[in-house]
């Protein structure tokens, strides 16, 4: 039985095609999100990678910010539930998920069965999200892919505000003007994102195993900063941007089995 999950975020669209609820046939990411051609392109890529077509899909679940506007799915489920489902499948010991996407950050607490116990999200603010890193990378004239390697060269992290992306951007510009090394500023940016994420985790309560997901998890500098602040190991989920879509595909499988 083939099921599919689509996670339509603010900044990216992800599709996972699953066989019999446990074998990943395709996991595709397109870096444009809701309201764009992103979802369609992600679907096309997933069908191409798996050699399948829409008619082969038994059930299809949509999640993410753009789920409500996406009418082709059989069901819409929140990304909180889908990330929990997906991460529990990949790492059953997970008890805390830190998901940092394009425009929001979430801390999700799971029980032993992988059910969501509690969750906290950031409120109406880009600080501590992928958007924050986008803005800083542009100011520093580096790509997002370079942030991790540059962070490893830092000798003394600069102080960067975690309250507001716009104010933090001004701070970074000011620090560049003073000649502070990019690596140190990047380490400070990572610490800033970490402090926002950890604020959510402190509200949740810290419980191992801690797993990071979302597009920002691809920047290992952020997970290192979170690990340092919490004093705990933070595991990055395999293919961290697709855990929501994976969870959606698993939910689709469970619904198909119940039918």
């Amino acid at each position, binding site marked *: 039985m083939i099921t599919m999950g689509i996670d339509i975020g603010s900044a990216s669209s992800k599709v996972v095609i699953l066989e019999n609820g446990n074998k990943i046939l395709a996991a595709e990411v397109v870096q444009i999100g809701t309201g764009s051609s992103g979802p369609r392109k992600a679907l096309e890529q997933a069908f191409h990678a798996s050699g399948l077509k829409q008619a082969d899909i038994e059930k299809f679940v949509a999640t993410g910010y753009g789920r409500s506007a996406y009418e082709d799915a059989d069901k819409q489920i929140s990304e*909180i*539930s889908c990330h929990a489902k997906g991460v529990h499948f990949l790492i059953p010991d997970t008890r805390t998920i830190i998901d940092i996407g394009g425009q929001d950050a979430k801390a999700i607490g799971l029980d032993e069965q992988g*059910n*969501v116990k*509690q*969750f906290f*999200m950031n*409120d*109406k603010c880009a600080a501590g999200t992928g958007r924050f890193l986008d803005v800083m990378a542009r100011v520093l004239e580096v790509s997002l892919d370079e942030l991790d390697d540059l962070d490893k060269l830092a000798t003394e992290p600069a102080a960067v505000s975690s309250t507001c992306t716009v104010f933090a951007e001004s701070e970074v510009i000011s620090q560049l003007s003073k000649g502070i090394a990019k690596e140190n500023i990047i380490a400070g940016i990572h610490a800033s994102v970490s402090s926002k994420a950890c604020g959510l985790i402190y509200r949740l309560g810290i419980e191992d195993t801690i797993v990071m997901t979302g597009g920002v998890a691809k920047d290992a500098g952020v997970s290192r900063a979170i690990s340092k602040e919490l004093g705990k190991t933070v595991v990055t989920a395999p293919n961290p941007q697709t855990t929501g879509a994976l969870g959606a595909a698993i939910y689709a499988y469970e619904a198909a089995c119940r039918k």
Partner: protein
Amino acid sequence: MDRINYIINELKCIADNPKKAMDDYKKATGKGAVGIMPLYCPEEIVHAAGYLPMGIWGGHRKISKSRAYLPPFACSIMQTVMEMQLDSVYDDLAAVIFSVPCDTLKCLSQKWKGTSPVIVFTHPQNRVIEASNAFLVEEFKILKARLEEILDTKISDESITESIRIYNENRQVMREFTQVAAKYPHIINAVTRHSVIKARFFMEKSSHTALVKELLAEIRQLDPKPWTGKKVILTGIMAEPNEMLDILNEFDMAVVADDLAQESRQFRVDVPDDDDPLYRLAKWWQDFYGCALATDVKKYRGEMLINMVKEQQADGVIVCMMKFCDPEEFDYPIYYDQFQQEGIRSISIEIDQESQAFEQIKTRLQSFSELL
């Protein structure tokens, strides 16, 4: 069902159009309306004068002019009230009465930009001793005298006593309504429930009582249907706008009880008996419980909410956290901790009357309904 839908629609129209409700009252009685700022005011004194006490709770609108007078961290009720003052929305009110249990209300009471005269009174923070009642009686005497002067009328003790009777009857009927609404969520959904309760702010209370009584009689004739969705309790200052309540409906979450300042806290407690009507109104403040703005050193609110959850067999509590409401924020960690100990699921969502987008709240509420 036709009569039920008719009454619901009638009350919803009143809740959505307070200006028309005020104009209709003026036409019918020849008397005007007195604005009542949040949260708790002895409306009975206004009612006894023959005027319509009109609740002022802000509204769903963008803020711009208000920024000249209020800091950004004033709650959105005050921001939108200020905005509407500056747009002359309240200028037809004969007077505006302020209670000032929080700092923002204190500030706003000193800078009313509309044309109506303002009367300010203070609740005693220490409300457990007899002197608190004596203090509040004096405040109410001043309020009454000022109202008599502005409205050019005399307000007798007998008329206040009669108004207290009318208001207590309305409080009783509203408590019944919330109980019936809990049993008939397929008829009284989250939006309907709110409209029926909110309409009482813009109607003469005995008229509101009559309509709600008729509504309850009609509903009780129907068999309750089993509810397959989730049951939730709302707590906070208010749960608006309707776009937020629509999300509860979308995900089959029935509001089986509330602890909202705009709703059940208004009619949770009756005005007690006594010979002196002003003393009775003052004693209400001492008897009142479970609100962040009514000092309670034992913080009974958490226990009250836990009992509500058990009585209604609710699945969880939705904390409707008014953005920038310090008293509500201070209460939250205390009762949240109590919820955790009892295994009660809860979520906090931010209420901001200026909000135009509700996707973030939708994500939270949908996720909450999925984990219940």
